[in-house]
Structure formats: C-alpha cells, structure tokens
C-alpha cells in the first residue's frame, strides 16, 4: 500500500514526504539538517537528548519522534531554537567528564562536533558536575569509559534492535540514570566485538572504545576535522536546488 503523500514547510522551505515518516525523516530527505545526538539512522528514535527540538505550529517538539503531517509549519533554524540546542549541548558537556584534548574520539565525536557547529567555543556558564564514574576495562577487547557517556542509548537500542541481545540497558533514575551492562561488568555479558552495539559510529562519543586500536586514525583526518557535522545531509540539498 502506498502511503499518502504530504507536503509541509521547514523554515519556509516546502518539503515533501509521506504519512508515517517523522519530521526528521522528511528533513533529511530534503537535505535540511536538524541537529541530533540520540537519533541515528537505523535505530528507533527515542527523543531523549532533545537537541532536535523544533517548533511545530508554534509548539516545541522533538523532530526525531514527531510524526510529519500535511500542512504543518516547522521552525528549525532560529536564534531561539539555536540557544536551546546550545544549552542542551552544554548540559551534556557539564554533566560528564569531557576532556577533548585527551579523548580518543576527538575529531569524530558527535558531541564535540555539535558544539563546534553550534558555535560553542568556550567552557559553559553551567557548573561542572564532575561525577565519579568508574571505567569498565573488564572485557579483553572493549573498554567503557563512562565519563564520556551522554545517555543517548544508541548502544542499548543497537544491541536490542539489531543484535537481538540485551548487552546494555538503562539503570538508575534522574541525574543517576546511566547505561548499565547485562552482568556485573562487560566481560560478564555476551557482547561480541562484531556487535552493532559496539561498532564505530554507534557510540557518538568516546565511551565505547576498542582496545589496542586507539588513535590509529590521525587527528586532522577524522570525520569532523574538515567538514562540520550535518554537512553530509546538507550536501544533498544544493543538488536539488530547493531554496
């Protein structure tokens, strides 16, 4: 059955999609980048980081979970919304312990890349929470540096939805909500180095690290060293000449 075609506007640009898609899906197709961290191609969206907050007919909503509908008016790129996104990114930085200069993920870290894209160049106005988070080095091949975890749950969903396992899961509540493993530590679980849950690109930051291959890719040649995050989606737009 063919889904009903719909048409609506994002920042005044007319976009086309079909019923059943999210606002994020349609925006991606149209080459309009809506910043996001917890949402990633191939996994069910969960709308938890809130970085993709847009306004739909004047009301805030997470683009990754918001169903697209005919005739809606989506606002994505305004100073107001950018300031919310900056605040959220700053919250994620200050919540954990992020030291870009010594982090293995620097240059391909989505949190860092998002901060640059949104123009965050200095320490935030918020206090550092400096949590004490243990490192899980129990597994022979995989290291978990939870200091860098941003609770996006991509590893959890990849394990459940693609690997059909439950290696990771959320535990705790509130500011203590965190990603736990299915056992006393990672070595206790049935994780495999070939699992999607631990594949490059699943963890947006430097929490899930493969042992012994750190820093193989030189700084300067990493994913976001030369082009900002989101440019891969925006590339498709110029070709279409939508504006």
């Amino acid at each position, binding site marked *: 059955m063919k889904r009903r075609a719909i048409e609506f506007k994002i920042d005044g640009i007319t976009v086309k999609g079909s019923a059943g898609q999210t606002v994020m899906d349609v925006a991606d197709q149209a080459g309009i980048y809506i910043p996001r961290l917890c949402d990633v191609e191939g996994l069910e969206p969960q709308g938890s*980081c809130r970085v993709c907050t847009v306004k739909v007919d004047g009301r805030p909503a997470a683009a990754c979970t918001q169903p697209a509908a005919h005739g809606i008016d989506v606002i994505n790129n305004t100073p107001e919304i950018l300031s919310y996104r900056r605040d959220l990114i700053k*919250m994620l930085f200050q919540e954990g312990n992020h030291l870009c200069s010594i982090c293995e993920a620097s240059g391909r870290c989505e949190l860092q890349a998002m901060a640059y894209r949104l123009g965050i160049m200095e320490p935030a106005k918020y206090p550092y929470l400096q949590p004490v988070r243990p490192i899980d080095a129990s597994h022979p091949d995989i290291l978990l540096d939870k200091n860098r975890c941003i609770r996006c749950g991509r590893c959890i969903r990849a394990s459940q939805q693609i690997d059909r396992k439950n290696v990771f*899961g959320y535990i705790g509540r509130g*500011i203590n909500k965190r990603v736990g493993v299915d056992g006393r530590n990672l070595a206790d679980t049935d994780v495999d180095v070939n699992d999607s849950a631990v594949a490059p690109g699943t963890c947006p930051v430097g929490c899930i690290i493969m042992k012994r291959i750190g820093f193989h890719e030189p700084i300067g040649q990493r994913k976001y060293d030369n082009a900002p995050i989101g440019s891969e989606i925006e590339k498709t737009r110029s070709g279409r000449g939508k504006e």
Partner: protein
Amino acid sequence: MRKVRKGISAVVYRSCKAFNHDRTRILDILRKVQTSLGCISGETMEMLAEELSSHRVEIEGLVSFYSFFSEKPKGKITIRLSDDIVDRFAGVDKVAKVFSDELGIGMGQTSSDLNFSLEYTSCIGMSDQAPAALINESVVTKLTPQSARTIVRKLKQNPVTSNLVKKKGDGNNADPLINAPVKNNIRRKGDVLLADRLPAEAGLKKALKMKADAVIQEIGHSGLRGRGGAGYSTGLKWELARKAKAKERYVICNADEGEPGTFKDRVLLTERPDLIFEGMTIAAYAIGGTKGILYLRAEYAYLLPYMESSLKKRRTAGLLGKNITGKKGFAFDIRIQLGAGAYICGEESSLISSCEGLRGEPKTRPPFPVEKGFLGFPTVVNNVETFCCAARILDKGARWFSGIGTDQSTGTKLLSISGDCTRPGIYEVPYGVAVTDVLDMAGADAPAIVQVGGASGDMIGRSSFHRKISYEDLPTGGSFMTFNASRNVLSIVDYFLEFFVHESCGYCTPCRVGNVFLRERIQKIKNGLAEEADLRYLKDLSNTIMMTSRCGLGHTSPKPVLSSIAHFPIVYASLTKERTDGRQASFDIQKALEESRRIAKRQSMIYDPVYGEAAD
C-alpha cells in the same frame, strides 16, 4: 552456602509463580522478593531474569528506578520519614535525630543486625498531620521527638508495626482492614464528593440505562476536566478512546498522588472507594472497556487490603464481572496495581509504563494513551477525583454539575490544605473560590507565601490572594500550602528543586541535568553569594528546560523558581547584591586556598594570620 542459594531461588520462584510468571506484573513480583529477602541483589536479579526470560540489566533497571526497591540489604523494619517542606517546617529534623540516636544509625543507613533501616522519602501524603513517617507499610503521624523514642523502644521489644497504633483515626481509618492512626481531617463538605449519604451506585444504574454515546455526551456537557492538574476535558478523552479502533480498551485510575502537599485522594480512597470504582465502571461502559487498573502509590499500601475487599464485595454484588447489574454483555473488572515509589508515575504515560512492568518513564507522544496506551490498547487514565465526579454527574446530571463553579471550571474541587494554619485538611470548594477565602477557612496564620498546585504549581504572595482557584487562573491538582512570614522563600524553592532532582526520571537531558543546575543556583542565592546576573541565568535556564523537556515534569519544574522571582522580587533583591571589590560574590578565598594548604602542608603567607606552621 548452597543452602542459602536454594533459599533465594525458592523465594524467586514462589514470587514469580504467584503472578503466573507474568512479565507485566514484575513490580508485584519484585515487591514480594524485596519483602522476603530485604533486598534484590545482583544474584537475585540473575535468578529473576532466568525465571521471567528477562535480562539482569532489565531487572536492575527496575530495581534502581523505584525508591522502594533496593539492591543493598534493608532492615526488617524500614522507617521512611516524609521529607516534605511542611514536614521540615514541622520539625522532622528533630524527629529524625531521635530515630537516628535511638537506632544508632544515620539517615540512609541500615543497622548491622539488619533489624532497622532509616531514610527520608518524598511526601507521603500526610501533610495535614506532619511530621509523618512510614514504618514498613504502616503510617505514623504527628511525630514528636518523644513519640519517636517510644516507637523505637516498642519496635525493639516487639517488631510488629500494627502494635504502634494506639489511637485509630476517624471514619474508615478505624476499619480493621486499615487500622491506621490517620485522620481524614474533612473540614468542608461540598455537594459533589463529600456530602453525607451519597446514593449508592445511582450514577452507574442511570448510565447503564443510557447508550454509551449519551454517557460521554453527558460528561462532555458537564464541562468536567481532569482533576489531576492538567485539566484535559474528560468527555473528549473518553470520546477519543471510544473512537479508537481496537479489540480491547482499558480504564486506569491514577491514584499515584505524589504532588507534595496533596492528600485529597488519600481521603477519597479511604472514604469513597465505591464511588471511585463506580466512576471507573461508568467509564468502561462509555468507552467499551473491559479491564481496569487502579494504580495505588506504594505510600498508600496501608489502604490496599480495604480496597481489595471493596472490589471483592462489588464482584459479589454483581457490580463487577460479567453482565454487570444484569446488563447483558457488559463485563468489566478492576485490579489494583501497587506502585513502588516514583513521583513521575503520576504522569499518565509513565503510569502506563509502570503498569506494564517497565521503568516509569513517559512514553513518546503522539500516539496518546487514548489511541495507544496500556499494552498498545486505547486507554483512559483519569484521576481518582475525576472518576468520583463522573459517577456523580451521571446521577445528578450535567446541568447540576456545571451549575457549580465557573464557566471554564465546573464543579467542586478538593483542596488539601497544609502548612501554617490552624485547620489543615480537606476542603471541598466550588471552583472560583478566592485564595483569601480559602486562607480564612483554613485559619491560616498570617499567610505570606502560598504555594498553589504543589511543587509544580505557583508560589504567590499577598498581592495575589484575590486570585481564584480555577483552570483559568490558579490551577491545582489539590495541593494548597500556606506559610507565614517567618518562612524562607528560598528554602521552599530549594526544597521543590531538590524534590524534582530526586524525582526526575532522567530520560531527557533538560530535566535530568537542568534541574540540578537550577538547584545549584538557587542555593547560591540562598547563601547570599549571588549577583543580579544569576537571576537572568535562572530565567534563561528555566525557559530552556520548559521548552525542551519531554513531559510535564520538566515543563513545570522551573515554576517555583519563576513564580517566586515574579512574586517575591524583594527577597531576591536583598540576596543578590552587586559587589564593589571586583570579586564574584561566590568566590570564597578561604575555600579556594584549602586544597593548596593541604598539598603544600603549610598556610598562606597572605591570607593566614600565622604563616609557616603546618596546616594539619
């Protein structure tokens, strides 16, 4: 060693079997395990996972989410002191000190003989008789240092909590199935809910003679809106659930009354269980529902046996089950789901998650519960008071109900009044009543600060006492706290933020992290270390949290901050002074030097009076 393992696995097996190994009943299973073993350890989690075809991390996710479960061993008797702002002002700290001294353990600790645990818990719905505590499932109220001492001595002699009740409360509190010292404190009876001698099942009987559509129309015409606080039209909610295509539909009663300072549902659950169940049955008939759940907060577990017996009586009387009151083809039954200590479960989609045996986290909306709710079926979730009103509307008519209150807020509202007043308790008032009249009724002692709607409500001062309790002006789910001028505005705001930080589920960034930052800055102001720029910071941060949060908790948690800044500008101004010495007010040179002194093992040449002597 082997024998112990056998013991645990036997408990796990028995607990799972009691609920037919039903994964959705895992909260009940965990509760049984927690009660039997005093904790749910990693080893126990693994056994439970095995037994329920689940995963250890999933069980750990639940145990670590709900306050009433614990991975670490708890004492045979757990004393949970209600840590509400009203309890604090009533001197709960002095009571806590006596408990702590008598038991020889600090707050949050368990005695080495595993006999006692002592901790603070969020508001237990007893603000009209504060300070109060839960001792296992039993409630003790109006605590004093003296009574705390007596309680500990009694428990040490005989660890049975039911022996603690010296004087039973009024009404059904004295029923052997409740047996609690809790007082109803009903101060004002209105026509809708608390009137004496309400005709039994009158609404249900009339409803069953009508077509389902007509029942929904009647509720719609009455103007009834949700009593939990959000104020959604009940008629519209029922209509949407009825229209949704599905094999099954559910009716859920939200009795997870967790808003600090609210206790009106406690009184309805105690005195009007049949009216609640009647309302739920009417809703089921109207939407075509077959199953109902009443979600009772864990803090009200002492009411469970009485409510279960009410359900049993209804089944015997043909008011639940098949062919209700002889109406062919109308079948409906209700079960009670006990919560496990989580404020967020009062949010309707979190409540559904919790009923399904999941972490009590809100669901992604749309789809809304009326389309896809409990286990994916259309579900109506209404507050205890809303169901009671619905039953009364069917009996007395929409016009009667809409004749009470204001245009946009029809009917009466139950207020739970607590704080600095001589007559704390339950007041049934028509919507549109002015704050000043409410304060008079309650005998408020020189009211200076009034918090309407609990932690997620508005804080107002004298200049706003003319305002009216209604959806269009000052909405409240029932909480109404009054404070005199001796109370510190910032202490109250700080308490609310502490509450939200503790109760945020942590799902989304702004609520999880933002509330921690709000509290940090409010404390800075409270300690007199803030500057004017901090107020701007608080407003901006509040705005981000409200605009980007995923559910009602984050949409409202900054309200105490914003409304107190708006209504008590002088308090904030007096605490935020610009410095003239060029330093930030929050910079404390002595504190900053502390670490250097420790590392250098000497004092400061400039800032310490005696230079050169070892600091330690």
